[in-house]
């Protein structure tokens, strides 16, 4: 009987994931209303449950894709993968106001450049404090601090060791996860309640998953504004880190 059940699950992966996510959200919203009296948004709790499940999945299988490494939950990988995520992010633009995007356009672009450079500097400084002193390793870790895609792309381009590339990916992952969890809690203190700030936020943080998750749990109305800038960040990082930022780092550290 178990075999039949598991076969049904495996053959209908995506449908299983709809059911699991729906149940998770139901539980999360009950926790939100009953235990926190609505103070912590249901989506934030659901994301934290998701991350916990991802951790359990990662530890039990040793894989890299969280819960979806467990075969009966593989549909989660499809539902939460890049294709549907980007599709849904584009769809959120349906509710966005183009005038708001235009108004905050310059702030958004400025925040993109500042975000990439700021993340890079923080990464390089901390890597240096941890004893790395060669330009290649420093640049790779700095790039990983931008996003977990910029790190390995840069590392591969300038010939970093695989150990350093791994650290750079992990740093980007920590950033992304912390942004997802932390955004709804910090939003009040940094004025994150209007489209302009959301666009600046997307540009500064840059991690599409982090910004997408964080804003969803803060105020879904802000999602398109944050996402529209965040999606340019990784490209900009991949452009700047192995070129100009690497040259500057090499000039400073030799």
């Amino acid at each position, binding site marked *: 009987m178990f075999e039949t059940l598991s076969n049904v699950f495996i053959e209908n992966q995506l449908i299983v994931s*709809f059911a699991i*996510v*729906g149940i998770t*959200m139901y539980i999360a*919203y009950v926790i939100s209303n009953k235990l926190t009296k*609505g*103070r912590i*948004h*249901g*989506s*934030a709790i659901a*994301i934290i449950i998701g991350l916990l*499940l*991802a951790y359990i999945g*990662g530890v039990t299988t040793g894989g890299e*894709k*969280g819960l979806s490494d467990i075969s009966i*939950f593989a549909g989660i990988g499809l*539902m939460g993968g890049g294709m*549907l*995520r*980007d*599709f849904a992010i*584009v*769809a*959120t633009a*349906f*509710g966005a106001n*183009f005038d*708001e*995007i235009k108004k905050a356009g310059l*702030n958004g672009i400025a925040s993109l450049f500042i975000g990439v450079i700021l993340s890079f500097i*923080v*990464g390089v400084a*901390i*890597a240096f404090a941890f004893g790395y002193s060669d330009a290649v390793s420093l640049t790779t*870790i700095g790039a*990983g*601090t931008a996003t977990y895609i910029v790190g390995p*792309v840069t590392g591969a381009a300038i010939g970093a060791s695989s150990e350093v590339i791994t*650290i750079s990916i992990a*740093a980007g*992952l*920590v*950033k992304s*996860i912390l942004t997802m969890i932390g955004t*709804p809690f910090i939003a009040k203190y*940094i004025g994150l*309640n*209007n489209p302009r*700030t959301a666009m*600046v936020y997307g540009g500064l943080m840059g991690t*599409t998953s982090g910004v*997408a998750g964080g804003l969803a749990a803060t*105020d*879904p*109305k802000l999602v398109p504004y944050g996402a529209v*800038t965040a999606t340019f960040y990784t*490209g900009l990082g*991949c452009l700047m880190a192995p070129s100009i930022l690497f040259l500057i780092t090499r000039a400073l550290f030799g």
Partner: protein
Amino acid sequence: MVIFGVALLSICMLTGIFLGEMMGLSLGIEANVGGVGIAMLMLVLIVDYLKKRDKLSKAAQDGVGFWSAMYIPIVIAMSANQNVAGALDGGPLAIITGIAVVLISWMFVPILSKSKSQTSSENITVDNDIIGGKTTNVRNIK
């Protein structure tokens, strides 16, 4: 028809991703430069154009609205896909770097968004029901 909206959304996304890839190629980098962002801008402009001319039926709007409303569940599925174990295995350097950059970036948000803001929070014109979630629950801090 509902599929018209979904197809419009798909065409915007494919065009955006394609342009993003081409942009990456022309800059000589292995990444999609803002493909999703371009797609979003396209969708906003096209929807605006069609709505003004009354060419976008209710059903077609529902087609886009459905995927917009699926956004939060998809993000939750995404969170369950993250390599959390990998992030924690990255050692203290990775964890400290990740935490530090988030905290420092947060501090920069108010500085960068200051110039003549605070006016626009009230006039966001969004059809709340299509984004999903109850509006009463939207703000976590009351």
